[in-house]
């Protein structure tokens, strides 16, 4: 037994992916794990550079060039499929007797254990490969748990936001939502119309028939308002019996009058709560964002407010436009905006 063979025996235990090559680059011995990667193709006797391609440093295709890389990091891969990537280090033997190349998987370890069905026994006892595999699985599981927590938190956040913007009695938007939407419309320089609606005679329903009846009326009124507006319009309940409509991109007075009159007409239809008849009506004031310089929605809302006040003053159940501040009684002909 020569000393080189004794050394190779040692290497089988210490570095199960070593290659011992002679001065011409022919493979003399190979570690058991490396041989396991090509079970039907004995590596001993092959030319090292025929079996492996050097990825870095490039342009190494001869034995002398390979020997010149001694001590530096090598990146290699198999020339045939699967072209598993390997890391390597070459150490020349004394007296130009060839070299030992030690290989390892590096980052390709995850694919390698799958492709070659490697087991713990294929790695040296000091190799961190098993710990690395453990860590990858453990971290993936932990990451998955964190990811699903994030998804749930996001869902909860959306639900909380939705709740924060909703009037719980009627399911309409609330004042906070209205502020938010109007702020957005102003920032995006959109045109819009604001209607401020106040239920007439609501207080007497509450006083005479009780709060349950009042709540019922508010819910029915909300349903009517949603039915009479488009999906993209905003209907908000901003006070006890006060509502605000935001019509984005709708500033045509004729259309708005039509909507206001339909809403008033439907709200005037008697509602029945536990056998008792509840009768209300509504006054509406409308203002357009185009009537102002569009810097502050509070101005538009204030104008709609004034128009509403005018409508109430003019005997209720009517609709008034800011700007012509004369009442348009419901069910009468529409007065075009001056």
């Amino acid at each position, binding site marked *: 037994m020569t000393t080189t063979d004794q050394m190779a025996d040692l290497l089988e235990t210490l570095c199960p992916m070593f290659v011992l090559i002679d001065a011409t680059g022919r493979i003399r011995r190979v570690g058991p794990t490396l041989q396991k990667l090509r079970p039907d193709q004995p590596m001993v006797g092959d030319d090292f550079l025929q079996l492996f391609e050097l990825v870095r440093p490039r342009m190494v295709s001869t034995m002398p060039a390979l020997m010149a890389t001694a001590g530096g990091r090598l990146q290699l891969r198999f020339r045939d499929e699967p072209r598993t990537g390997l890391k390597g280090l070459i150490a020349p033997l004394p007296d130009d007797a060839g070299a030992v190349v030690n290989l390892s998987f590096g980052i390709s370890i995850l694919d*390698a*254990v*799958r492709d070659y*069905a490697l087991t*713990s026994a294929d790695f040296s006892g000091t190799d961190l490969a098993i710990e690395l595999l453990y*860590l990858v699985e453990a971290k993936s*599981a*932990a990451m998955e748990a*964190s990811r699903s*927590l994030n998804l749930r938190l996001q869902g909860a956040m959306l639900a909380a936001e939705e709740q924060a913007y909703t009037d719980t009695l009627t399911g309409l938007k609330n004042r906070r939502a209205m502020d938010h939407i109007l702020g957005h419309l102003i920032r995006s320089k959109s045109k819009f119309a604001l209607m401020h609606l106040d239920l007439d005679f609501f207080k007497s329903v509450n006083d005479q028939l009780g709060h349950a009846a009042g709540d019922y009326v508010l819910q029915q009124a909300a349903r009517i308002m949603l039915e009479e507006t488009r999906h993209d319009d905003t209907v908000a309940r901003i006070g006890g019996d006060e509502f605000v409509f935001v019509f984005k991109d709708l500033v045509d007075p004729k259309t708005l009058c039509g909507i206001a009159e339909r809403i008033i007409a439907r709200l005037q239809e008697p509602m029945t709560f536990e056998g008792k008849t509840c009768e209300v009506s509504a006054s509406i004031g409308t203002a357009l964002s185009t009537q102002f310089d569009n810097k502050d929605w509070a101005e538009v809302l204030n104008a709609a407010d004034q128009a509403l006040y005018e409508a109430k003053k003019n005997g209720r159940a009517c609709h008034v436009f800011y700007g012509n501040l004369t009442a348009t009684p419901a069910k009468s002909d529409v007065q075009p905006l001056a």
Partner: protein
Amino acid sequence: MHGLINRAIQSFVCTTYGRPCWARATETAGLGFVEFEPMLIYDAELSVRLLDALCTDLKRSRADFLEDLGTYLVSHPNTEDLRRLLRFGGVSYVDFLHSLDDLPDRVRLAVSDLELPMLELREETPTEYKLLCFPGLPGFSSVMTGVLRAMGDDYGALVMLADGGHKGEAEVIAITLVESAFAEGRQFDLGGKTS
């Protein structure tokens, strides 16, 4: 207490005894919620109240309940990830036993704020071992008894476990390895985790 531990209890109870049982226990314990988040930390007091409620409801001793929890963690398909992580401990049951000394460190590598009590394996003879479970997590030795039993099945080893009393402040599990290759164990491929 770490959410992962609470979540383990939740998963075990829901799978084994059903969601109504779990909901009752969270109610009795006054949790105010029914779902533990695995990646959040909870007051340890909550878990104690919850375990009390569960053991009362199920009429089981704390030790029996926790041992079953340990078995569930290793053997149920729901927690296959955990079984795989434990199998990284070694190729044989004895290797696995020896890897337990590193378990708290391994756990911390994966989830840095999950602290498990120190474990120490003592080999008395090649077939007799003692596992010392140090304090830090009440009932941990019961859970570990269930884990050791189920991992025995996983490796195909025939193992007998007994309460080994106390050694200093540690609780001791006495392990007797009757046969290391008693049955065909479950398969474990290093790269076997698909998807």
